[in-house]
């Protein structure tokens, strides 16, 4: 049923992405691809992977933006990973004519049942964030599953039961948890750092949150000089070097 859950449990599993920490290494995208290529949404078809125009299904993409402050001209580089935001008011779910697209009542994860999807692509038109992917080979739509086959997998050690993008991030820029619970670690992090959702004007009520870059230190103060000044005169050199210097300087 593509109506949104009538009695949501209040649990909202989501990601918190720290734009201050992310270095844009694309490890999350690669790890996502690796896990999901054999997971619930498998396969993530690649077309011409080694050809002239490689193309394929990805659930996670990293954009890099330059943000220029108009007054000072100071610029900063922000690496920006983007995947499904598992919106509370997910337009990709309600437009689906078949019931293939659904939002789980128990944890708010948005999924696609690829067994009944007709591949009309309307959900990808409805999503403002580009979270929906069309698998040309299978003729159906695919999307981020929040690694639903990993986070609940009791065969994995407890610390591994987080989405692949989170467990792989080398800088710890990604956190995972219940954003519906105000006392969860992720909710506290969002509150402490003024985390925000993307394009609120679209009315989709995204669950995932982004933490803004920390204020940049502006001004003329230079970093303290930690190294001893190198003495480039010959006075401190050895006997031989001083002798060579004397002859050559003559």
């Amino acid at each position, binding site marked *: 049923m593509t109506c949104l859950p009538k009695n949501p449990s209040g649990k909202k599993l989501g990601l918190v992405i720290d734009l201050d920490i992310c270095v844009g290494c694309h490890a999350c995208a690669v790890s996502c691809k690796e896990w999901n290529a054999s997971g619930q949404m498998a396969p993530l078809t690649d077309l011409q992977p080694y050809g002239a125009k490689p193309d394929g*299904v990805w659930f996670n993409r990293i954009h890099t933006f330059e943000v220029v402050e108009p007054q000072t001209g100071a610029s900063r*580089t922000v690496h920006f990973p983007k995947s499904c935001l598992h919106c509370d008011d997910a337009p990709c779910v*309600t*437009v689906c004519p078949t019931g293939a697209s659904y939002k789980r009542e128990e944890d708010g994860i948005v999924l696609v049942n690829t067994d009944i999807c007709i591949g*009309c692509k309307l959900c990808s038109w409805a999503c403002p964030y580009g979270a929906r992917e069309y698998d*040309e080979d299978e003729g159906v739509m695919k999307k981020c599953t929040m690694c639903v086959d990993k986070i609940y997998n009791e065969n994995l050690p407890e610390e591994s039961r987080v989405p692949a993008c989170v467990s792989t991030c080398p800088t710890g820029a990604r956190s995972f948890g219940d954003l519906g619970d105000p006392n969860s670690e992720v909710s506290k992090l969002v509150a402490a750092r003024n985390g925000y959702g993307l394009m609120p004007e679209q009315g989709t009520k995204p669950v995932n949150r982004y933490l803004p870059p920390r204020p940049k230190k502006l001004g003329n103060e230079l970093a303290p000089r930690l190294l001893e000044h190198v003495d480039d005169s010959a006075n401190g050199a050895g006997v031989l070097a001083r002798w060579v210097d004397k002859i050559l300087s003559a």
Partner: protein
Amino acid sequence: MHPAKSVIFFTTTTGAGYGLLFWLAVLAHRGLVGPDFGFGLLAFGIAFTLVVGGLLSSTLHLGRPERAWRALSQWRSSWLSREGIAALLTFIPTVLFACFWLFWHNNSGYVAWLGLFGGVMSLLTVYTTSMIYASLKAIPAWSVGWTVPGFLVLSLMSGAVLASALAAVGGYGAAALWLVLPTLFFLAFGLVVKLSYWSKIDRSVSSSAETATGLGEFGKVRLIESPHDQPNYLIKEMGFVIARKHRTKLRRMVVIFAFGLPFLGISIGWFAPDIVVFLTLAALGFCAVGVAMERWLFFAEAKHVVTLYYDT
């Protein structure tokens, strides 16, 4: 948005077919066309070919056309689903009306009312089609108030031009004459609606790269590195730029072909009954080209907000 040929064909042909079904019922109701088998066969043949052909072509862009029947299930939330159901239900009164006309030689009285009911159902189906697009907030050029009138008025307009041509060809002078004013009215109304639509979408401000990234408080946002060095699905499906580049020229051509030349043809035909067949057929030809261009432009110049993440 990428203008898929199957969807352009689908929305224009079903629009004209449903419009024609509406006007046939009006002509029968007013007693301007009798239950003539030959004319009925030609008119309903064209109307149902357009509607059925359009509906079938809409399944061509599906990744899994064999599962198309599943699209009827989610009418509670999905306009696409509602459209499928409306299209199927519309066949009941319209096919019954055609059967009465063709096989029982009756198209007046309660049969005409049945036909009118089918005409209203036809317009309702066009409305559900337009709502598929009008309900997508992520495409600001579609989620404006002028989208729905655009589809409805162009359906009635192309149906009226088609009915005028058929009445002229079939030798129904009185019907052709009666159709002149409604046809001219809808040609003019169509132009007003499209001009209003264009001025609206040119003026509307929506999301920006700053709101898309949420980085607006730090300054002006510019993409410096795309996620891939090749175009991905999103860029290919939503990042169509050719129409936006030539929008002024293309809009001028739509005005001339869809509205201007047909208006000229139908109005001259009013005063020149000797060449009315040629003039209405010419009007129909121009109108078909113009409406196809209008629909291509409707898809192609619409910009999806996901493109804000890609600088296209």
